[in-house]
């Protein structure tokens, strides 16, 4: 089997790019719809999904814009399907409108951002300039996403599975935030199949998804709350949910027990920081032994 053919059930190591690991992980997680628009440095994701998703019984759409991609994600989410879009920084800016609507309507979906340099057109190299538009909401209104930041290709795979689980657990958009380094580097990845890969007709969205009002009252997914006090109530509800999402915050601690100075970083830069700390510690030890 060629290396770039997703096979989510094989527990062998495969040598793939971070972007490819994103696609493999999404398929393993039960992703059934992908919507996207070309932008460097994440094109491997739509390219892989375009041939892998139809085989997995899913739908791939190359949208007319990132604006449309994100709104297609909103639609598939409303149907209770595990769906994905991916882009890079300028495209993520265009998606913020729909992401705000998804947060306001409490719709789960996964958005991958392979961060490139900005502002404006910037460049196509790695950057972490989207930190604020990722973790502070990004669009209009008070809302938050859960953001997962892979540093390795294996984490790209693993965090995609986790991203879908979290999106449906909290009925909230989840962003996987990488960059041009994470997306473009190749590493060995061990694919694994989650125990309960969700898909169409699964139970996780059964009490809210749209499927036609058969034998029940119609459902309405919306972010418009005009009645007196209704929006304040919705925002209190959302803020309580965001507070509960704090339970998902996690960090890898590396040599922090005896540290006098702690470097805090995420993703590819977190990995570089670890290398720097290893080198500095070695230098410090050699100076200690010399003196």
């Amino acid at each position, binding site marked *: 089997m060629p290396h770039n053919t997703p096979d989510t059930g094989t527990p062998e190591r495969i040598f793939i790019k971070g972007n490819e690991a994103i696609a493999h992980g999404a398929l393993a997680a039960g992703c*059934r*719809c992908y*919507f996207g628009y070309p932008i460097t440095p994440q094109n491997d994701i739509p390219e892989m999904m375009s041939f892998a998703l139809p085989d997995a019984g899913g*739908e791939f*759409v190359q*949208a*007319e*814009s990132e*604006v*449309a*991609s994100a*709104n*297609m*994600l*909103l*639609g*598939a*989410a*409303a*149907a*209770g*399907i595990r*769906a994905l879009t991916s882009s890079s920084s300028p495209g993520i800016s265009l998606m913020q*409108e*729909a992401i705000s*609507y998804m947060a306001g*309507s409490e719709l789960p979906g996964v958005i991958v951002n392979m961060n490139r340099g900005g502002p404006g057109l910037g460049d196509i190299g790695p950057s972490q300039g989207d930190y604020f538009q990722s973790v502070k909401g990004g669009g209009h209104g008070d809302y938050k996403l859960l953001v997962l930041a892979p540093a390795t290709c294996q984490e790209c795979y693993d965090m995609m599975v986790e991203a879908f689980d979290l999106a449906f657990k909290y009925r909230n958009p989840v962003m996987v935030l990488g960059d041009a380094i994470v997306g473009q580097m190749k590493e060995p990845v061990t694919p694994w199949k989650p125990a309960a890969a969700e898909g*169409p007709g699964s139970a996780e969205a059964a009490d809210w998804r*749209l*499927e*036609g*009002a*058969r*034998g029940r*009252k*119609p*459902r*309405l*997914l*919306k*972010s*418009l709350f005009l009645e007196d006090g209704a929006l304040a109530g919705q925002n209190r509800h959302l803020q309580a949910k965001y507070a509960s999402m704090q339970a998902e915050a996690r960090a890898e601690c590396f040599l922090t027990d005896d540290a006098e100075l702690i470097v805090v970083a995420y993703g590819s830069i977190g990995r570089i920081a670890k290398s720097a700390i290893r080198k500095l510690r070695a230098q410090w030890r050699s100076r200690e032994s010399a003196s």
Partner: protein
Amino acid sequence: MQADAQLALADDEQMAFEVPGVLVDRATHYCPGCHHGIAHRLVAEVLEEMGVVEDTICVASIGCSVFIYNYLAVDSVEAPHGRAPAVATGVKRARMDKIVFTYQGDGDLASIGLAEVMHAANRGERITIVFVNNTVYGMTGGQMAPTTLIGQKTTTCPGGRCRDREGMPIRMAEIIAGLGGVAYSARASLDSVKNIRAARKAVRKAFDVQQQGLGFGFVELLSGCPTNWRMDAVKANTRIREEMIPYFPLGVYKDVTEGEGVC
């Protein structure tokens, strides 16, 4: 009992139509003389006639039309301004077995949402779009729309729309008919009983082509907005006949069931 007696039909009266069960019995927020109520009823009648009420998902747009979900008892999702065709694409791709439709006004569809509607049409998404064209932004107070007629006064073209300054009104049914994946595109009017009957047939056809998997179904409904046109309902109907229909000709612009193929 007395009220029932008063409501009963007199000998020389007959019931023109029954209210569809899928229409919610509640007070309307639409202005007197507005045609949204008629457009809602046509959609409701068609869904019931086709027996698909319980398999239908409505995508609401932004404008007066957003509140369709208050009147139509089907599963609904609210789309951002202009994005309803993209949202409907997502819903349909997730559930190809369902009937999915959007209900959009002219500002939403023909201005901010032009890219989404044209590409959904061109891809041949198996969705239906009900496009209500009343030549103004209604909910925001009567600003100029992409379909505002030349010379028509609005709050943002107070001297009347000028071709050299604001361009010509956009004819959507014709534009949509020219795109690849379209199975049906038509324009009808809600100004008179005769035209409403024709509109009902067009709405039905726009849903039929979706159900049959033939492609994208589009129906434009010329409608009145007496409040923002600053005229009474009767004059608004007259305006549709005398000013709108000459520029927006009624008719079927594409119908693959009449022999023209779709890819």
